[in-house]
């Protein structure tokens, strides 16, 4: 067989080679795509971590605020407590003091703040040992300790 003539086998080889290269290119492209996606994902995860960290910081700040010694050793609820509370909690405590027991709804009506926020503050007062709560059916009633 002369060199100028390509045999059947040569043609098949050439065809296979081209196929192989094509396949190779597709794989490379896919890998590039995957790499891009992985980068995007890692960016997203990093951002999530940042917000999570920020949230953890706030939670720790709140924890610290309420684990102060004076709060922990607080046994009696008397008016000097008014002097150690942050403004927003004092407002809730003073409103609660007007009632034998009250729901977050009742408290919020008189403080002019939302029910959800008063519920949060009332529960904080409970955790600090300044108020207690009891559930009656669907409703939660708070009272001074």
């Amino acid at each position, binding site marked *: 067989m002369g060199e100028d003539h390509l045999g059947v086998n040569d043609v098949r080889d050439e065809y296979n080679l081209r196929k192989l290269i094509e396949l190779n290119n597709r794989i490379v492209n896919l890998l590039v795509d995957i790499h891009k996606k992985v980068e995007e994902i890692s960016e997203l995860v990093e951002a999530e971590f940042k917000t999570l960290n920020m949230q953890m910081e706030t939670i720790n700040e709140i924890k610290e605020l309420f684990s102060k010694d004076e709060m922990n050793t607080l046994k009696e609820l008397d*008016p000097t407590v008014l002097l150690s509370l942050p403004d927003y909690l004092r407002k809730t405590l003073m409103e609660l003091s007007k009632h034998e027991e009250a729901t977050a709804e009742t408290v919020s009506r008189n403080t002019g703040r939302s029910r959800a926020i008063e519920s949060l503050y009332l529960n904080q007062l409970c955790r600090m040992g300044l108020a207690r709560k009891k559930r009656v059916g669907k409703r939660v009633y708070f009272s001074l300790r």
Partner: protein
Amino acid sequence: MKTLAIHSYKGGTGKTFLAINLAAQLVELGKETVLLELDFDAPSLKTTLGIEAEKWTNDVLIRGVNIEEALVSINNFKVALSNPSIEEINKVASLRKTEYMRVLGRLLRALKKLEREGIDYVIIDTSPGVSLMTINSIAASDVVLLVMREDDIDISGTKNMIEGIYDVLGKEVYIVLNRVLRKENKEKIERELNIEVISEIRCSCDVPLWKGKIFSIENRDHPVSVGIRELSEKLISLG
């Protein structure tokens, strides 16, 4: 409705005298006014005004009696007195600390009731110093009038009290200098306490002679009366 606490660090500064006359002058200026005596340690309104009562602020705040039942009329304003009997003074002195939180609740409810009745001003005559009842009175008030005697000033004690109670509770405070002889101390006090002296009331030996009467009503043109009337006008203009 505005609730004014008349307070001082020391006793004998003229709180009770000022509370009575401020109430009388606010009425003269057309304001519906109620005077509450919340000095359970040393009640003095009953003898100072020479009036009788069947129910007392003690009953309202300790036993939950309706505020209406304790109000007595005098000179077109109403007043509720603290019970001066020894048994009652001892009773209050032996209250458990925790009971004072309930006392605050009853005080806040009584004030709300007065507001609904259309009262414009409630004047609270408090006990001096930093007792639990005082914290309650101040916590329940909108404005504090800090009464200081010009001839007997305890700046450092007063300063502690301002920082420890008024500032923490975020109250609007004005100083009334009483028994003023020389008018020399205003700037010094304002500088050291960083609070405006809203009024200087002259010292006058006529004042103690009018027990059982309302001084500023009986002696309208007296400089002490004029001073208190101007203070009332200023308070009204503050809104």
